[in-house]
């Protein structure tokens, strides 16, 4: 197995060098289970470093290239993701998790600079420029959301040595950012065929953003072949999505899942009560058939720059189903089946629509999903508005080998963890095991200036699970620091887990890093009643009015001694009042007399 993979790798490298395509694209379709389909779109553009530096852009888009040059960014990774990868039913992640980000937007880059401050200034420039380019709020990645990870990321470029070339790694994420069509459009514009032809023509916003999980990635790096030929700059755009086949096949003009007519229900007739009134549904949707147009809304519109330098067509669509399963084509494409019997690929000629029909056969016609190397789930513990806890369950499903990984978490500054409460224990043990956490890198938060950065080197023995817990306090924010819809809570960015190659089989794994991300968390903070300011204004005004009234009263009043006041006693007052009443009575009676007089 090892040999084969080495051989494949060298073959692939050989192809890369010899054919030297400046642009290529590939769509990989993989049915995961009866109900879902993983579609991975990959677009790779190349340019020589020299032409890039001279601002001679062809396949690398000028808009992005100039931003990177201006911000002196040598390597860029930008991710837009929504949903969550369900690794229990979908297995291992596509691309080993390297082409996905946490929920929302995630960005990390190696930026040139003379100092930390210098690199940070360029990072801000980069964020602002990308924010405009991708219609995303990347400009909100400020100092509180930026970190400098130590162990989690390594440059993918083969040219530089980060420390010697004054390169700084900066990482930021926006878990609350909602990814939608406005991010897809600029993404497609970066492609040479702008989504009009080739596999990119399948990327329709309605279908992409109806996916159960989707991730868009942009990676820019420089590659120097080992044979010493010219270095090149490589840009890779990736879109991965897991589509629900049932949902995608629903027609666009009638998307409401109304109950199907009872005569179309697939019932389990073996039940004793089976009849026209009761229907125990049987699992009828195993291995259902679909076409590209049903799933993506339209067929592939020809190919985009599919011919290599020798005029040969390259494969642009692959589907991973066993050879037993029938795949029908509409349009003239060249089919190649792989030897292992698990997939087939198609080379599509330009300017011809291409359609593919996967037939409906029984349940055995799926490739087995591969087991992920690690399961990670993170949740909050406790309740209340003062403090809480975070609990992460890390399960190693392998029965034979232990696993070592870096666990990287950035927490907002208003979530104040207590590092002394950080414990890791095996689920089987009741006490903490000191040898699980091998290394800790911790950078505490500064209020309103930076968040907490926590990187842990953890190893989990074979066939066991580790529970990582720590407690934290919730800070009280200032009135103006709350975002709109403050009662929703505050999003905490997903944790990033980088699996390190185990010592046993380092030769085959050392090239391919594996990443896993947990889901993001929603942190409820004590939130004021925002109608309170009005009450406060009213109360303050009242107090001020009272105070002013009293002081004004004291200022303008003439003070006299108590003995100078005439008749200030109860008797005098009574007499005075009596006098007034008498006058009043007199007046009334007098009036009465007058009236009488006039009547007479």
């Amino acid at each position, binding site marked *: 197995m090892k040999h084969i993979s080495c051989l494949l790798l060298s073959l692939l490298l050989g192809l890369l060098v010899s054919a030297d395509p400046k642009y290529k694209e590939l769509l990989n379709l993989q049915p995961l289970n009866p*109900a879902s389909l993983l579609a991975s779109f990959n677009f790779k553009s190349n340019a020589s470093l020299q032409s890039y530096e001279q601002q001679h852009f062809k396949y690398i888009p000028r808009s992005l290239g100039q931003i990177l040059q201006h911000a002196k960014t040598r390597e860029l990774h930008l991710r837009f993701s*929504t*949903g*969550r990868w*369900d690794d*229990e*039913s979908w297995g291992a992640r596509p691309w080993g998790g390297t082409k996905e980000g946490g*929920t929302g937007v995630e960005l990390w880059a190696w930026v040139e600079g003379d100092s930390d401050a210098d690199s940070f200034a360029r990072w801000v420039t980069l964020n602002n420029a990308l924010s405009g380019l991708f219609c995303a709020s990347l400009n909100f990645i400020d100092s509180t959301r930026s970190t400098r990870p130590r162990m989690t990321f390594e440059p993918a470029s083969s040219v530089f040595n980060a420390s010697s070339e004054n390169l700084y790694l900066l990482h930021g994420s926006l878990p609350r950012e909602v990814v939608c069509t406005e991010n897809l459009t600029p993404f497609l514009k970066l492609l040479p065929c702008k989504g009009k032809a080739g596999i990119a023509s399948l990327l329709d916003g309605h279908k992409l*953003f*109806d*996916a*159960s999980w989707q991730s868009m990635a942009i990676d820019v790096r420089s590659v120097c072949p080992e044979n010493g030929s010219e270095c090149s700059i490589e840009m890779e755009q990736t879109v991965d999505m897991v589509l*629900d086949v*049932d*949902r995608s096949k629903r027609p666009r003009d009638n998307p*409401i*899942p*109304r*109950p*199907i*007519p*009872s005569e*179309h*229900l697939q*019932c389990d007739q073996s*039940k004793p*009560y089976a009849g*026209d*009134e*009761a*229907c*125990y*549904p049987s*699992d009828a949707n195993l291995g259902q058939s679909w076409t590209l147009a049903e799933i993506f809304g339209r067929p592939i519109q020809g190919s985009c720059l599919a011919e290599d330098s020798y005029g040969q067509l390259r494969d642009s669509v692959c589907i991973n189903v066993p050879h037993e399963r029938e795949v029908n084509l509409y349009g003239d494409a060249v089919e190649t089946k792989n030897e292992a019997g698990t997939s087939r690929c198609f080379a599509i000629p330009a300017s011809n629509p291409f359609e593919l029909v996967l037939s409906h056969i029984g349940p055995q016609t799926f490739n087995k999903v591969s087991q992920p190397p690690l399961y990670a*789930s993170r*949740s*909050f*513990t*406790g*309740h209340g508005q003062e403090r809480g*806890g975070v*609990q992460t369950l890390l399960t190693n499903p392998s029965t034979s080998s232990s696993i070592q990984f870096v666990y990287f978490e950035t927490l907002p500054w208003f979530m104040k963890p207590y590092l002394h409460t950080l414990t890791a224990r095996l689920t089987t043990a009741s006490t903490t095991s000191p040898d699980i956490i091998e290394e800790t890198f911790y950078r505490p938060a500064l209020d309103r200036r930076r968040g907490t950065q926590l990187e842990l080197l953890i190893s989990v023995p074979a066939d066991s699970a580790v529970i990582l817990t720590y407690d934290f306090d919730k800070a009280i924010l200032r009135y103006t620091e709350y975002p709109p*819809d*403050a*009662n*929703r*809570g505050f*999003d905490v960015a997903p944790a990033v887990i980088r699996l390190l190659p185990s010592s046993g089989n380092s030769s085959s794994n050392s090239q391919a890093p594996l990443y896993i991300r947990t*889901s*993001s*968390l*929603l942190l*409820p903070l004590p*939130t004021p009643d925002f109608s309170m300011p009005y009450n406060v204004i009213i109360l303050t005004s009242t107090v001020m009015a009272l105070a002013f009234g*009293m002081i004004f009263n004291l200022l303008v009043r003439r003070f006299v001694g108590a003995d100078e006041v005439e008749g200030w006693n109860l008797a005098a007052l009574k007499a005075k009042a009596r006098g007034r009443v008498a006058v009043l009575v007199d007046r009334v009676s007098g009036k009465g007399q007058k009236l009488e007089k006039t009547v007479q």
Partner: protein
Amino acid sequence: MALISPTILALRRDPRLLKLPPYLSALCIFIGAVWLCLLPLNEYSRRTYISENALLPGQVHTYFGGSEQNVFNAYKYEVQALVGKDQEAISTKLSDIFESAGLRPARQKYEYHAAGNTYSGENVYAILHAPRGDATEAILLVAAWTNMDGILNQSGVALALALARYFKRWSLWSKDIIILITGDSRAGPQAWVDAYHDEHSSPFVAPLPLKSGALQGVVVVDNALDHRFESLHIVYDGINGQLPNLDLFNTAVSIASGQLGIGVSLQRMWKHNDSYQERLQTMLRGMFSQGLGYSSGPHSSFVPYHVDAITLQAVGDGWQDEMAMGRCVESIFRSLNNLLEHFHQSFFFYLLMQADRFVSIGTYLPSAMLVAVNFTIMAIALWIRSGRPPAPKVASTMPEKQNPEMEIVQENNMTAITPKENLTILERQLFLPVTLVVSLHFLGAIPLYVFINSSHNTLPLYFLLFTFLNFFQPTVLATLIHRHTPLTPQHHLLLQSFSLLVLGIFLATLATLNFSLSLFVGLLSTPLSFTGNPFSSSVDAKDAIPSKTRQHIWTLVLQLLSPPVVVWAVCYIWGADLGEMLAEAAFGWKVNGLWTQVVIWCVWWPAWTVGGILVNPLL
């Protein structure tokens, strides 16, 4: 201001002012009680309204019906077939149904021990992932296997299963939906919600294998009927009298009655024709249930975790079928799905007197506060009286004619002449009253402990024994104290003052947390304010001890209003079994974290005991 203050200062030592507090205190109680009776009037209550605009109740068309009825019927047959099977068979079948709907099931075992009973079972639940969600928020649909009366919730469970399958097809969910079938209505939901927040007591309660995000709302379906129902009974009381956000209740009412035309009732008021008596009755039933603070349905356990929850219970015999209930749940879930923020807009403190009429805390709180304040007023008055030197008889009757004894005071070259009476200092002997009041409050832990830890067989016997002992307890204590140190009149005043002070503080605080409990305890304790001869014409300390006849009358009144007697009376009026009620209380303490009995034994009972000692003729 400057002109009034000397007048006030002059009034400070006026004996007439000292006679005022008892009347003020009585007035407070009177206003408090009348206030409560005014609340059902149109002028004091308000119509309910949806405060959170995002909810948009009843604005969507509901589609649950048609062939879903067939699926529901099949699930109902499956549920009925499980009657009498063991827990394992039930859980396996439920898991199978979840799995066939495309959801991953999970289970949780729990076991509680309270009052000698074992409450065990297993919860089965499945999480429907929001299609584009990231597990940050979740809404919960609960159906208990047996309802509060222990009857199989056949249609409710089948409905939850059918809805799970139906909801799976929609792609519009913004929050995860958790469908939970609990083993029973009391222990199961508590075990689940404790474990969800990782606050469960292992090893009796297992942790949850699957979790989602923050719970935003809970709807419990309870339909044990085998026929069509007439109306929906909405139950909303949480543990310790905490209530869910009024918006959730209003949403359910507006959807059920407005959108689907199903009648809505609350607090078991099946017939409600909007008269004053019925409003008052509904409100009082709500207050009783709030005051007792026990679990009134599976939703109750969620409320203390700041998760808003209600139970929809199908009642009566009418023409609404289960599908209508399903559409109601569907529409509520669509509304909850719209929520951008956690429920926070509407009221958390309210009294409902009808499905669409309520009073909010600002309107009703004064009544409990006035009742609590009466104790504080009396405590202050008694404290002042306890420090007054015995005044000469003549001075009090003819103050103008007699020249009071004067004394010259010199301070910093200033000289003043003041009546001698103002300068005499009477030392208050605090040790005995403080010790007695504090120790009696701690003594409350004994009945608390006994009634929580006894088994349900012995509980009625213990309670009978306690009632008997409690009858003689003030007399015994009074004799003991009298033999040790005979109580002076000042002791009397101070003892009563401290006891009332503590009671007043406790009740005022409690009124903001559990209004009804505070009000009921307050009203039942009102005689304690007036046992010490407060309306007598003299304000001297030695007149604080009432005459023998009055002591006998007061003893009788207090014995009738003693905590155990009130518990007996409540059981008699409601026709409840005393043993069951006590077992329920013990279960509430151990499982739900109910602290009504703490208020009874550590606040009310000590105050009553002090009152009993003070009016004891032996003293």
